[in-house]
């Protein structure tokens, strides 16, 4: 499977791009030409130059440095969100699918209720309830998304739980936790990878939307959504301000989408030619 992955150009290119962006984010303090918080009001809205590669914003801060630092909250928060979502979803899905009975009933009823709310409204409701804060944004996103994973993983577990290798493992006296972790989880991991790489794009857009509305990452911290919110105010005079963060979001999100599609093709060639 790794061979197939290495052969697939789209998968390789997008992975390289994403890893590159992540590294740029991690090493932002070294790579950034200027301090992203330092304001220079006399030098506001300056155009492209060597010292300010993407110009400056309405407070004279270096847009390029802010873009680099902006990778951290954008990718970091999205990754945390997905980690929480998959963790909770996998736990619930495995429990429901493997033990069945009343555990399954309870979990799946909760999942049904969760899925009957439009996710966007739930995110807003949770943020409203807990207060405007970055942690709460992650909590809200995990809260609305875990049910999808729980359902998908449960279906996957149901498919595998009566296969011979699982039955054999139980026969020779392996513990339930061992069977869950070593047999069932790896069997459904590939499906999960596809869904996760598609959903991380969703998480990035969602978090940046919240920041844009002022409900997520707050003002001085550079975040792409928050930068667009500041750009909105100078839309008429300096429309260039909104280009860089927007394009960055589109590039990163489409990289994740392409990666997800490529992964699906690698794992399931059936749908590739549609």
């Amino acid at each position, binding site marked *: 499977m790794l061979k197939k992955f290495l052969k697939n150009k789209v998968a390789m290119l997008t992975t390289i791009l994403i890893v590159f962006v992540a590294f740029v984010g991690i090493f932002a303090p070294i790579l950034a030409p200027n301090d992203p918080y330092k304001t220079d009001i006399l030098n506001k809205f300056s155009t492209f130059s060597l010292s300010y590669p993407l110009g400056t914003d309405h407070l004279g801060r270096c847009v390029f440095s802010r873009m680099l630092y902006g990778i951290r909250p954008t990718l970091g928060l999205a990754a945390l969100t997905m980690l929480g979502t998959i963790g909770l979803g996998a736990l619930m899905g495995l429990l429901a699918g493997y033990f069945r009975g009343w555990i399954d009933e309870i979990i799946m009823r909760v999942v049904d209720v969760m899925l*009957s709310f439009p996710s966007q409204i739930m995110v807003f*409701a949770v943020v*409203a309830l807990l207060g405007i804060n970055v942690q709460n944004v992650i909590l809200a996103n995990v809260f609305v998304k875990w049910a999808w994973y729980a359902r998908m993983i449960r279906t996957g577990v149901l498919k595998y739980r009566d296969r011979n290798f699982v039955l054999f493992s139980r026969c020779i006296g392996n513990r339930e936790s061992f069977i869950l972790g070593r047999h069932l989880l790896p069997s459904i991991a590939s499906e999960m990878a596809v869904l996760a790489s598609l959903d991380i794009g969703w998480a990035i857009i969602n978090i940046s939307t919240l920041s844009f509305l002022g409900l997520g990452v707050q003002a001085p911290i550079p975040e792409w959504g928050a930068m667009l919110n500041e750009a*909105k105010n100078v839309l008429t005079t300096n429309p260039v301000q*909104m280009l860089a963060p927007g394009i960055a979001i589109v590039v990163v999100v489409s990289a994740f989408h392409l990666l997800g599609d490529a992964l699906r093709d690698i794992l399931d060639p059936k749908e590739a030619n549609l």
Partner: protein
Amino acid sequence: MKNYVIKRILAAIPLLLCISFVCFVFINLIPSDPAEVALRVRQVPVITEAAIAEVRAELGLDKPYLVRYVNWLIDCLQLDFGVSYTNPSRTVAGELVRCLPATLMLAGTSLVMVILLSLPIGFFCAVYKDSWFDRLTRGIIFMTTAMPAYWVGLLLMWFVSIQLDLLPTSGNGTWKHLILPAFTVSLTYISTYIRLIRNNMLENMKEDYVLYANVRGLPQKTILTKHILKNSMHTCIVAIGMSIPQLISGTIVVENVFAWPGLGTLCITSIFNRDYPVIQAYVLLIGVLFVVFNLLFDILQTLADPRLRNEVV
């Protein structure tokens, strides 16, 4: 068939109860004491323990949890969602009714745009599969799924309103104000449905009945419009119908970008003002709409498609 419809409607009731319970728990999780808030709303100068206890009894807050839930539910069924925290002279129901028409107008226009644009484009993409038109559309679709709605809104606002000076940037009033926000809302759905229609039609093209129609010597035009399109429409209509509540809730971001005075703007303002009853009523409204539309179009689908009808009976 009748039994099936009744069964589905009965199955939706516990779901509705669960949703309402979640909304009820929601307002009870807020950090502030409702009795204290009620006193503040009435502008009582000094809030004493005795006064709080009195209000508790008056509002029924001293009763057991479930009793309060039932009372609240009965109030909700009579469309009484309480009073806004920030503006006590207004009821929540009144606020919702004030903002609902603008949002419905926006969502309705978006829906019309979605249907008018995605049907023909999806149709032509399927007919001329792998042509330059199909490739271009697929490229654009791919781009739009990666673009945040608010950014699209900003770009459109800048290009159409400021550069070309064709339409107003924000506000509400004439039909001109409606075009940009509605298009921004519909864009995500348009790309989803173009893909759905295209793939549905391509799948249908492989079916035996198409081969048979070809064998009979029917003109391609008839086969495409009368047979394939008709068969692909079922799923699309259901999918579009089920997404109506999503469309209504999806306006929340776009309304803020374009300063559209609808439910979305109300919701965001309420979040900033910690006006919990308004948020609660809004979440409840959208949740109920979601269940109702799902139910409605599920039943419609079974009515329209004889194959499904045989399965359920």
